[in-house]
């Protein structure tokens, strides 16, 4: 399976500058692409476009050759946000958050180090690291084919970061899930990705990384 952005352009409103212009990107299943770019580059916007949260002004997002917008119901491309606090409903218990996912397996929940006691709690009673584990678990439902990780471990401590990534690398490998990892940490990208994309001056250059 292949997730493909074909010549996409995007801006938030007519008056604003184009954040992306004729940008193309391909991610294969089982591939882990590391993306880095200076701040203000629109990395989060790119993830939102790829996951179907925003519509590009021109160009298409293709999943398996078919436009992503034509997929109904569960979106096979799932995004994990930088700030888990905003990605969960503050009035729902964590077990409900997990239930929102697509039959998330117990193995995934355990693998992410989610403790049983946390499930009965409200988001305000958990730390950012704990919340992020739930968000990742929710995104790893049965039908997920691609995962977009937008700076998901930026605010976490290094140990939690490696816990989460260790699991994610294993899980995506096992299930053949394609992964886009957006981060500003060179070290992390080196560890995680099978292929690196580093964006400077809006021109794409691919640097093959050998793991």
């Amino acid at each position, binding site marked *: 399976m292949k997730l493909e952005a074909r010549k996409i352009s995007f801006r938030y409103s007519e008056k604003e500058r184009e954040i992306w212009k004729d940008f193309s990107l391909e991610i294969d299943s089982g591939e882990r692409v590391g993306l880095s770019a200076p701040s203000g580059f629109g990395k989060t916007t790119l993830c939102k476009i790829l*996951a*179907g*949260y925003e519509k590009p002004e021109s160009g298409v997002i293709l999943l398996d050759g078919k436009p992503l917008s034509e997929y109904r*119901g*569960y*979106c096979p491309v*799932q*995004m994990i*946000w930088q700030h888990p606090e*905003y*990605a*969960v*409903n*503050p*009035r*729902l218990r964590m077990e*409900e958050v997990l239930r*929102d*996912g*697509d039959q998330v397996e117990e193995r995934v929940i355990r693998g992410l180090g989610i403790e049983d006691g946390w499930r009965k709690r409200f988001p*305000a009673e958990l730390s950012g690291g704990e919340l992020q584990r739930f968000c990742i678990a*929710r995104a790893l*439902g049965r039908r997920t084919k691609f995962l977009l990780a937008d700076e998901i471990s930026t605010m976490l401590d290094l140990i939690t970061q490696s816990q989460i990534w260790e699991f994610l690398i294993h899980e995506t490998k096992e299930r053949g899930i394609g992964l886009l990892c957006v981060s500003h940490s060179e070290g992390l990208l080196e560890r995680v990705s099978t292929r690196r994309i580093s964006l400077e001056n809006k021109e794409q250059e691919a640097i093959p990384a050998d793991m």
Partner: protein
Amino acid sequence: MKKRLCWNQRTKTLILLAVAVFYLAGVAVWGLVGRESALVTDFSRKNLTPSLSYLFGTDWLGRDMLARTVTGLSISIIIGVCAAAVSAVIAGLLGVAAATLGKKVDAVITWLIDLIMGIPHILLLILISFAAGKGLTGVILGVSLTHWTSLARVIRAEVLQLKESTYIRTAEKLGHSKWRIAKKHMLPHLIPQFLVGLVLLFPHAILHEASITFLGFGLSTEQPAIGVILSESMKYLVTGKWWLALFPGLMLVLTVMLFDLLGECLRKLTDPGSVHR
């Protein structure tokens, strides 16, 4: 992690809530049951000042002012509940409609809200009540058609904000239907807002009912409504019969304040930020 023994904000709030509910329900029921005694005239006990047997005194027809006041208040409370409920339902429907049915519907509803808010409340109330033939229906219609605007605004804003929140957008991508998202993710946010809005509408409704009745555009003068009592008492005030207006007036203020307090309590209890207080 010491547990505090003294009463905290939440306990106090709950006790206040219980007192307010008890008082209001009590007045409403007592007023309905004791309606007959409020109408009894007895010229042998004309114009009595407040005493132990007649706590609020009697009027120029020898009617017991306590019974009249309570009956008047119970009518007010019932009208208030009806009007506030109708008003809140209108607000809920229009608020949600404005936020979900697209730009045109939103523009129309927002315009309507602005229009109604632009006209002085009491003027519109009198107009509607008068057009609907005064009396009970007139008052309820008048109050409910004029009071929904601010709550509708609140609900519209809340829904608009919720629609754009990350967790609801995420729920969409997780393939949940609109209906399920509304039920699971939006309702828990809207219900507290709605309840608080509803309760805070009561005092307005009661006050406005009393005031248009006082002005003669509301309930008919045979009814022992609080507005009627007050307007009649005004005539006797100059002759030194102060108790005729004072006690009913005080009771009205107390009722209104209790409802207001009730709303505030509810708001505090349902606010998730109140965890820290």
